[in-house]
């Protein structure tokens, strides 16, 4: 059976003619950072924050502990591309070419069917936003991050840049210098948002960097599920996506953050995501990586108070010319905290998946529990899987468990399903979908169906 490459099947790889109304020239300098701030008409503190971050970015070297990033050329990227002159809350008012893109991606349809609110970002800025009225009345805020800086300056300043400070890593510094777009979500005390909110991120311009910044504050006893998806056209030149996500999970609050990452495979996807979790709060990252050229992403949770809980459910599909370096990080700082990091990765057609995870348990994290499990499945002999689980535990009175399996798809499993009439390809897909079941069962049904369809498209016979 002929091998179809990932590229041939990436149906989100179409590009639209450039409609941007402004873009900074390629490369990055203090001047460009100032220009972005100026164009956004920002307060002085944000301009200073950006310039300070730029200095940190310039001073830090690229990380060398993970995937080789030497081909990522910071000089060959546009750091800001403005798609339209204003944002809209009505699809009819969105510029036609941009709207056509989102129509093709099925976004307005999805909004009607399954989401309580939706945001759509095109290159550097959010061009559409909506939220159901009843949620607005309850005091829920869901808007683009730039808009929130203007509309809620005090709230913004209180929370912004505290969980992931610019000095955290080179890409967090870069994002802090040139951030644009992203979602700002505020859920008041005891408000439960029953239906997920969604944001869709689209890169259209070539050699572009997208640096959205997402900030979620879930007040005591509140509940929210946020879901993000993304895609980009296929270009021969590299693009860069480097987001920062900060989440506050307060006492008894519950947050789920679901990502279905499906960038085209010319995109470097280097993202920092972290949550602070207070007493009895619960944070769940469901992190799916299907696309991109290189992904490095380890959603993390700092369990700051008694009973705080973190779950990371990660899945990755590494196909031809792709490296998926993903996992999670749990920091236990208080007693009775619990964490689990579960990863399912699949590699095929020469792709490489890497599981990287760290659990730290501090001296006073008594009676805390952590569980790490990674399963890696290789669909052929050319593909690779590596796992780097690690634990740093300074408290004796804890329970830490770890399981790992790395294996090729079972010949006897294939034979069994084929003896029931399934072709080799159908059998492979069934095994893969079963392998992913612990993850897909946690995604809203409509999304799980879409995800299965996506996976079925990507996984071909061999």
């Amino acid at each position, binding site marked *: 059976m002929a091998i179809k490459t990932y590229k041939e099947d990436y149906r989100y790889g179409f590009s639209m003619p450039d409609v941007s109304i402004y873009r900074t020239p390629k490369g990055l300098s203090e001047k460009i950072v100032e220009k972005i701030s100026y164009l956004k008409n920002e307060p002085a503190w944000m301009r200073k924050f950006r310039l300070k971050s730029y200095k940190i970015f310039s001073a830090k070297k690229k990380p060398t502990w993970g995937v080789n990033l030497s081909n990522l050329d910071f000089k060959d990227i546009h750091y800001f591309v403005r798609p339209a002159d204003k944002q809209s809350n009505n699809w009819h008012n969105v510029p036609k070419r941009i709207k056509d893109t989102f129509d093709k991606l099925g976004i307005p349809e999805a909004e009607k069917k399954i989401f309580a609110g939706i945001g759509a970002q095109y290159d550097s800025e959010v061009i559409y936003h909506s939220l159901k009225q009843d949620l607005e009345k309850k005091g829920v805020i869901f808007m683009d991050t730039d808009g929130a800086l203007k509309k809620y300056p005090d709230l913004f300043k209180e929370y912004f840049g505290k969980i992931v400070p610019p000095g955290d890593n080179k890409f967090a510094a870069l994002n802090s210098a040139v951030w644009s777009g992203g979602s700002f979500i505020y859920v008041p005390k005891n408000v439960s948002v029953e239906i997920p909110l969604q944001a869709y991120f689209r890169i259209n311009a070539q050699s572009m960097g997208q640096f959205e910044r997402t900030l979620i504050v879930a007040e005591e006893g509140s509940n929210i599920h946020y879901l993000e998806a993304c895609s980009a056209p296929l270009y021969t030149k590299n693009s860069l996506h480097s987001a920062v996500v900060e989440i506050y999970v307060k006492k008894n609050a519950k947050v789920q953050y679901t990502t279905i990452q499906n960038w085209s495979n010319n995109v470097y996807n280097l993202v920092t995501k972290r949550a602070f979790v207070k007493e009895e709060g619960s944070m769940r990252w469901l992190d799916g990586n299907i696309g991109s050229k290189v992904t490095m992403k380890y959603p993390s949770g700092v369990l700051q108070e008694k009973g705080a809980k973190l779950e990371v459910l990660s899945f990755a599909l590494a196909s031809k010319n792709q490296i998926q370096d993903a996992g999670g990080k749990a920091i236990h700082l208080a007693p009775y905290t619990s964490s689990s990091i579960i990863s399912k990765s699949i590699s095929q057609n020469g792709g490489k998946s890497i599981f990287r995870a760290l659990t730290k348990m501090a001296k006073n994290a008594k009676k805390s529990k952590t569980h790490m499990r990674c399963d890696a499945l290789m669909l052929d002999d050319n593909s690779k899987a590596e796992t780097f689980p690690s634990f740093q535990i300074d408290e004796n009175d804890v329970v830490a468990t770890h399981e790992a399996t790395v294996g090729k798809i*079972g*010949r*006897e*499993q294939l*034979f*069994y*399903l*084929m*003896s*029931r*009439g*399934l*072709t*080799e390809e*159908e*059998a492979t897909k*069934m*095994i893969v*979908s*079963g*392998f*992913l*079941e*612990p993850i897909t069962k946690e995604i809203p049904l409509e999304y799980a169906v879409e995800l299965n369809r996506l996976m079925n498209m990507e996984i071909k016979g061999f």
Partner: protein
Amino acid sequence: MTKSMLKIRNLEVGSGQKTIIKKINLLIKKGEIHFLLGPNGAGKSTLGLAIMGHPDLNIKQGEIRFKNKNINKKTTDERARMGIFLAFQQPVGFEGVKLLEFLRTSLNKTSLLKIDAHTATTRETLVSNLTKLDMDKEFVDRFLNWGFSGGEKRKSEVLQLLILKPQLIILDEIDSGLDIDSLRYVTRALSRLKRESNASFLVITHHSRIAQFLKPDFVHIMTQGEIIKSAGKKLIGHIEKYGYKNI
């Protein structure tokens, strides 16, 4: 004339350099039940796997014909879709694959009738078949062969048979690990299936107990890769008395 279902002619099967099955001849006609008996390691299971087209086995000589077609070169899934079914002795488990979902897919692929697998495999029809086998109805939502006991695995194989209704059924040690009550349920369901569909059976066993419930038309004795004797069902009584040594 009764139609030929499976015809094996002068078959030699091996794995790598090794020859496991030596020059076997076998004819199973429509609606017949054949028993294949023999000691452990005689090559009985290998014959079942060879008929199903296991990729690790290669045919060195001879041919396997199904409904008068040579199937030597057919892939496993093609054979399944032609109507051959192998009930495994030790079926592998599939975490995350629900039994119901699996059965629907399989029925869709193998059914010779143009039926809609979703209506043919409703939860209700499945539950009624589970009852026939004295199985708990929560099985519908369990993962295929995952965490099943030995008895549950055998029953799950038979359940698939009842739904898929194949024409040639190979049962590999279906009786092992089943208590007498379970064996009764399983063989009763198989007998009913046989009456309804007139399927042919190749029953592989080293235990003649199952013959009390499922009556063979022919009995074959296999030792060291060869069929050394074929006769009517009386041969079973002989084996019970004298063993495989003095035939």
